[in-house]
């Protein structure tokens, strides 16, 4: 065996372990060994770290017998995403570990959590379409178990909406993949590059992954799901799994190799609307989880806009891709930090301390793009991209970005005020747990600065004009928030928006009701039955008449004559 062969096997092993470990643990959780397995929950993400550090870029391991011929590998984008995702999962599994102490539905939770993790890792590693699709589906469906974990009516409803949308997404994705596979004649992700995309494919891909990131018409699941899922689950949903959607776009519509102006328009418009819509509905919410969800809708809308800009032409694509990744990293970290913070406060028995509030305020404002935070870096990069693109898009940076930044600021402040006013119900104070939030916070604050690839944008964000430009929306947002709160502090917020979100479900229910069985078969068979019964006396009578001598005699004679006539 040559060294390369051994290496290949080792790589294959490592990559398999990344998804294999969580799956194995999930399987163990179904067995009596559950307790032991639960203890090893945080280890599930370990092989991912291993892979990040040992597997070289662009190694592709082929597993022809698996599924429809699977390929695994780790490219540059994949590595970033794996890094990010495994980090969040790792933290979340610690957090879950804590959660699970006295939960009855532990088994369910563990199985779904681990399966979703496996799916999330797997899709990052996948180097073929079906592998991606497979793990994407595994992750999406497993996440359903997390969404409805609490088994409340709200959770069930959230789950229903989630499942419906996921299903729509799956089908759209499936269709898109078939078209892509047909056009490229291969299943390998690399071969997509040269394919010219039909607008339909773009739309389908938008739907397929858009569901996952809560793009505008498909955002309905996000708010209720974040709100009703257990917080560690919501964390991974918001921090890790949404990225699967972004990664999906990057994989199937590789920026820099794909361009479509109509597609770009679709993405930009949908994203921009989502960015505003998220803020608006977020302000009306009273639950911290829901507000975070709305913020995700809004932030993901921004990323959709970035992706849409990248679709404009090849050059834009080349420059947009790293920005998108940067933004994704920033958002994931910030959002998961917020969730961890939220959880911390939920759990502890005493109200929010000032230190804690400040700590939470940091990632919150990072989302809004406060100078010196990762948000500022990402937004600067975004702005530069828009500026470079020229006229129609330049406006984005001038009006749109500040407005969203202001909105986000308001939203985040709203979030914190909600946190402050919420009554804490938790009792325990936990050592492990108190570690998670700080780690996450530190990571949020530092990683982008330490990241070599982001250095360029980071340095740009430190320019004085940029700082100023980044600062005023935050300040403006703060002021606006304060005034808004004063006006409507005690006003009850109508819940009409929430109703609207269940539109999909309502549609489904109506459709089902329309198709309720009308029992139309019974009367029909009854009609047939009575018809038969009416016929029988006639048959009997006819047979009786045919049995009379005179009828027989007549027919006898007639037959005689006729035959005679015919034979003569």
């Amino acid at each position, binding site marked *: 065996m040559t060294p390369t062969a051994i290496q290949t096997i080792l790589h294959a092993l490592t990559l398999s372990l990344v998804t294999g470990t969580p799956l194995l643990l999930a399987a163990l959780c179904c067995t009596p060994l559950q307790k032991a397995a639960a203890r090893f929950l945080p280890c599930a993400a370990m092989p991912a770290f291993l892979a990040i550090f040992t597997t070289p870029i662009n190694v592709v391991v082929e597993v*022809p*017998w*698996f*599924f*429809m*011929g*699977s390929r695994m590998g780790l490219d540059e984008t994949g590595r970033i995403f794996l890094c990010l995702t495994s980090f969040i999962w790792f933290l979340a599994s610690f957090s879950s570990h804590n959660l699970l102490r006295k939960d009855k539905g532990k088994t*369910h939770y563990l199985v779904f959590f681990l399966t979703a993790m496996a799916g999330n890792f797997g899709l990052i590693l996948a180097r073929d379409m*079906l592998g991606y*699709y*497979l793990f994407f*589906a*595994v992750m999406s*469906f497993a996440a359903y178990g997390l969404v*409805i974990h609490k*088994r409340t009516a709200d959770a*069930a409803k959230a*789950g*229903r909406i989630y*499942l419906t949308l996921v*299903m*729509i997404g*799956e*089908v*759209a994705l*499936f*269709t898109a993949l*078939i*078209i892509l*596979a*047909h056009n490229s004649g291969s299943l390998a992700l690399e071969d997509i590059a040269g394919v010219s995309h039909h607008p339909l494919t773009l739309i389908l891909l938008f739907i397929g992954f858009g569901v996952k990131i809560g793009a505008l018409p498909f955002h309905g699941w996000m708010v209720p799901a974040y709100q009703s899922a257990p917080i560690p689950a919501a964390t991974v949903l918001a921090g890790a799994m949404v990225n699967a959607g972004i990664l999906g776009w990057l994989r199937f519509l590789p920026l820099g190799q794909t361009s479509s102006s109509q597609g770009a328009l679709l993405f930009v418009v949908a994203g921009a609307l989502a960015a505003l819509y998220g803020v608006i509905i977020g302000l009306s919410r009273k639950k911290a989880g829901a507000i975070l969800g709305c913020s995700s809708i809004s932030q993901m809308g921004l990323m959709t806009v970035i992706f849409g800009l990248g679709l404009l032409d090849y050059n834009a694509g080349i420059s947009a891709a790293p920005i998108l990744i940067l933004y994704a990293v920033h958002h994931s970290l910030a959002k998961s930090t917020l969730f961890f913070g939220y959880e911390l406060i939920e759990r502890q028995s005493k109200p929010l301390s000032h230190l804690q509030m400040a700590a939470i305020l940091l990632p919150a404002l990072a989302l809004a793009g406060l100078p010196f935070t990762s948000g500022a870096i990402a937004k600067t990069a975004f702005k530069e991209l828009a500026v470079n693109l020229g006229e129609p898009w330049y406006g984005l940076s001038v009006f749109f970005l500040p407005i969203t930044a202001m909105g986000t600021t308001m939203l985040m402040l709203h979030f914190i005020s909600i946190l402050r006013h919420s009554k804490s119900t938790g009792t325990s104070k936990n050592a492990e747990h108190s570690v998670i939030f700080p780690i996450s916070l530190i990571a949020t604050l530092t990683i982008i600065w330490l990241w070599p690839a982001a250095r360029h944008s980071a340095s740009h964000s430190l320019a004085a004009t940029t700082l100023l430009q980044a600062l005023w929306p935050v300040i403006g947002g703060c002021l606006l928030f304060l005034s808004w709160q004063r006006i409507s502090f005690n006003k009850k917020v109508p819940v009409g928006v929430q109703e609207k979100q269940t539109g999909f479900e309502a549609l*489904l229910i109506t459709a*089902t009701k329309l*198709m*309720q*069985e009308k029992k139309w*078969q019974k009367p029909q068979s009854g009609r047939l039955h009575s018809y038969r019964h009416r016929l029988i006396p006639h048959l009997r009578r006819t047979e009786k008449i045919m049995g009379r001598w005179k009828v027989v005699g007549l027919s006898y004679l007639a037959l005689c004559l006729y035959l005679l006539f015919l034979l003569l």
Partner: protein
Amino acid sequence: MNWGQWLLVSILLSSFIPGIIIFGVPEEKHRLRTGLNLCGSILKIVLILAMDTGIYFGHNFEIRLPLIPGVELLLNGDPLSALFATLSSVLWLLTTIYAVGYLEGSPNRSHFFGYFSLCVTVTIGIALAGNLITFLLFYEMLTLTTYPLIIHRGTEKSLHAGRNYLIYAFSGGAVFLFAVVALQTIIGPTDFATTGFPSSFIDTHATVLAVIFVLLIIGVGVKAALVPLHGWLPQAMVAPAPVSALLHAVAVVKAGAFGIIRIVLDVYGAQNLLLLGVLPLLGGIASITILYGSIRALQQDDLKRRLAFSTISQVSYIALGISLVDQPLAVIGGLVHLVHQGLMKITLFFCAGNLAETLGIHRISEMDGVARRMPFTMAAFSIGALGMIGIPPTVGFVSKWYLGLGGLAAGNWWVVLILAVSSLLNACYFLPILTRSWFGKQQGPWPEELYVGRFETRLMLLTPPLVTAFIVIAAGAVANAQISPLAWVRFIVRKYGL
């Protein structure tokens, strides 16, 4: 007779003889009967695997029995028949085990198992049939042998269902007979050949051949439950669960679908059909069936009825794939769905039977929280249901993928559309069941708790669905391996030179 012919005969006899003996076994000799059943099933699997190996290495299996000039019985083992025979025999073994558990202590078991064995004999006969006449022979006998099983409970409802089944099936058979005779009048002997009949007939008899094709499809379409001809299937769900499994997954519906495959690929041949231009008709009917079956399934509350409509919808995937006969990918999708649908549907019916037999649950509205009581059953059910929807890595996805690719390759966008809509509808009627059973709250006591024991239900009832569910995932996960249904189907398609 050479060994190959002996093999064919013994494949048939391996279930026929036990069947005949079982008729004579006294009711109370439970072990003897079970032993006979299992021995027969296992022996059959072994023999069929031997045949598969032979076929793979190019051995020719054939027996001819001339009846009258132009009419001969022909048994022929080719890759396609191996596919169906293997599927049937494997599922047979599981169904037998299941049925033994299911019917424990109920009356008339000898009668039941006797017909059960005859039924598989006939199904294998259909698989091995080498010409249309032999196919017809076994096709009609299948109706006869399944009828006693459908009315096994003897209630008025089951008699009604049985009567409808007979009317449908024999009407189909009659149309089929008519068409076969007509075809034979034109083209002579109808031995299955990979290329179909010589295309010179198309020049002379195009219209007639097209009409005959339609009639043939109607004939087999009754069993395949194509849409206007599907009425018997939902009614037949009054039969015991193993029989439903048999109808939906092993024998009857499959025989119809297999018939469509045979007619398209072996009797007419791809080239001829393209010349005749009747395939869009088949594709259209199949599409309508897919959608109609799904929509009707949505409206059912009775679990088995919903599954029945789901079968109607799913089996038409096979017809849909076959209707795109010039696209190897679509043909692969159709053929492989023959196996995949069987695996998934049998799992579902096993589970439905378990629910009914253990807790007396027949309706979906009674299923809230049932997964807590019967986690393994419901796990198997979920796998089957997800497979039906087409979630990877189950086998259902594999079929759909190939169908979609084939449809695109043929330039038929609507195929993909149909697949997408159907998947959505499948999700609409399966996912609520899953969510109810896994995450719903139990509403009061179970309708009729019949079994309380160490496991969630009898072991003989529990094992078969778990095994099939495992296969559903495993066969999907290793679809591309050397030994898998997909690999065999590719082998078949290579044989046809598509």
